[in-house]
């Protein structure tokens, strides 16, 4: 008996060891492009066929310094930050307002309007790019923050998430607030929004991520370096840097750092934001 028990224990340990080994190997595979990029950003390439580049060495931040020197990296990063923060704030605000209307108010054609909101998710931005570019040109907004921000100030997913969150607040609390002297606006700002904070956090992270990573739209509405976001900056750098991967990877890593920070700090909220959309298809 004791023998059997010992053998079972060994088997379990072996199986746990194998599972960890598998996890580590898979994690290494997933991370490899990132790891390689970090290594390449650390040291200039010496000779072809030299795989030493993949061996960690004392960190050399020269590539990062070059990235700031050789390009408008600071400007790009700042632009991305400004644009992403404005889009996130705007989407959160418009989603709160519209979500509350759909959750708490009675008005004609409510269901139809709600479907109209959801229908916007069926129209890819790429399809509208021809006319939206025309609109931006006509407004004289080419090379401006408005062009990068305003078209994204409404978000059906956000409206939907906030509506769900508001619907989850007990009717008694709404009634209690009415008895305590608060109308819809007072209830919204003092009770509903504070209670919807987890949803708002998830939406914020999600919106920020989408805004930061935008590519096509910033590309077509900006020509001036002063208004280009970091994604478009990277594209320009790719053309300039050519085979100088050291510089290019330093810039790429810089462009991902803010998002990495957001991901590490707000992983839970992001997961909530991403999964909420997929619940029940």
């Amino acid at each position, binding site marked *: 008996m004791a023998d059997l028990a010992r053998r079972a224990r060994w088997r379990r340990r072996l199986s746990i060891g194998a599972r960890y080994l598998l996890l580590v190997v898979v994690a290494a595979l997933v991370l490899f492009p990132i790891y390689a990029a970090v290594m390449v950003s650390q040291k200039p390439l010496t000779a072809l066929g030299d795989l030493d580049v993949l061996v960690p060495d004392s960190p050399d931040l020269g590539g990062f310094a070059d990235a700031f020197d050789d390009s408008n990296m600071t400007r790009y990063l700042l632009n991305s930050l400004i644009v992403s923060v404005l889009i996130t704030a705007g989407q959160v605000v418009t989603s709160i307002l519209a979500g509350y209307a759909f959750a708490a108010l009675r008005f004609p054609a409510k269901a139809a309007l709600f479907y109209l909101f959801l229908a916007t998710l069926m129209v890819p931005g790429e399809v509208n790019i021809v006319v939206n570019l025309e609109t931006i040109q006509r407004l004289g907004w080419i090379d401006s923050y408005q062009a990068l921000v305003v078209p994204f100030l409404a978000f059906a997913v956000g409206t939907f998430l906030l509506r769900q969150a508001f619907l989850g607040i007990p009717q008694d609390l709404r*009634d209690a607030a009415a008895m*305590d002297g608060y109308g819809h606006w007072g209830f919204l700002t003092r009770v509903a929004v504070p*209670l919807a904070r987890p949803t708002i956090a998830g939406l914020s992270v999600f919106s920020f991520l989408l805004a930061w990573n935008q590519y096509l739209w910033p590309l077509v509405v900006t020509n001036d370096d002063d208004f280009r976001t970091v994604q478009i900056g990277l594209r320009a750098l790719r053309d300039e840097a050519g085979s100088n991967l050291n510089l290019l990877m330093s810039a790429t890593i810089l462009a991902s750092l803010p998002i990495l920070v957001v991901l590490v700090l707000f992983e839970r909220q992001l997961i909530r934001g991403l999964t909420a959309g997929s619940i029940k298809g």
Partner: protein
Amino acid sequence: MAGIRFESVTKRFDDVVAVDDLTLDIADGELLVLLGPSGCGKSTALRLIAGLEAPDEGLVLIDGDVVNDIAAKDRDVAMVFQSYALYPHMTVRRNISFPLKPLGVDRRDRDQRAEIAAAQLGLSDLLDRKPGQLSGGQRQRVALARALVRDPRAFLMDEPLSNLDAKLRAETRAELVELQRRLRTTLVFVTHDQVEAMTMADRIAIMVEGSLQQVGTPDEIYDRPANLFVARFIGSPPMNTWTASVTRNGDRGLAVDGAAVAIAEPERLAGLEAEVVVGARPEDTSLAVDGIPAISTHVESLGHERLVTCEHDDGRRIVVRLEAHQPYPVTGETVHLALDPAAIALFDPSTGERLP
């Protein structure tokens, strides 16, 4: 301080008539209990006063003013909900002071008044906690404090004690009554619990299926129920009832299952046709040598009294309340029931209405 008046108020939800042509006066400073089984429309009536529902027909008046079109937030009445409806993200202090802000009370005064209200209800040590950190009884007190804090024209309470355990419920009941007597603010209290109604109310209004059955002091309701529904709803165990035939051997008399039943004022029977429903409370029903035959099926001892359940041939049950020292029958024994001639209630067998 305010009186409240319903005038021919009807409220429907789709096809269901929640409140049916309700006319009711609630006096200034009164503690009125709206009593009825669940779904009888009592909560809807309360919400009509609150302004959380609007009447389909009729008028609701507070202090003589029609408030049909006044929003809940502008009616200056306070409500305590069954769920307490505390704001989970606010501390006790902020929960209590929340109704003061729309009144334009400045922050320092708000806090001070919240602290006074909290002190009245023994919540002073809990001001910085959030509702999630409180016991059920403490939450209930916070809800009360929130209602008290702005000295409203009237308090509305919707089953505020139903989530408390029995002991706490009895204590809180007494405290509430004392509080209301002290403040002399109109209180409309909704409950399905007749003990709460009997012990707390100045007057009770009983509702069934949206319509008002009777309004009166607890004693009036107990002693002179307006109809069979009220008679059977109030009192635990409820009033015993029998169908009696009206006999005409000389003067009119009553007979149940062949046994004569004496009535103190036989002139009450004048003008009655063949049948009438006779009612007597369990304490007005007694065991006798001679009377309505029945079989004792069950005896419960409550210490200070005994409840003897008897069954008639047709399966109807009757409960007799005996003092603890009185002799009582064994199970299965045939007994004879006598009714206190002065305490007999008469009801119309077709309408269920009380006869004089």
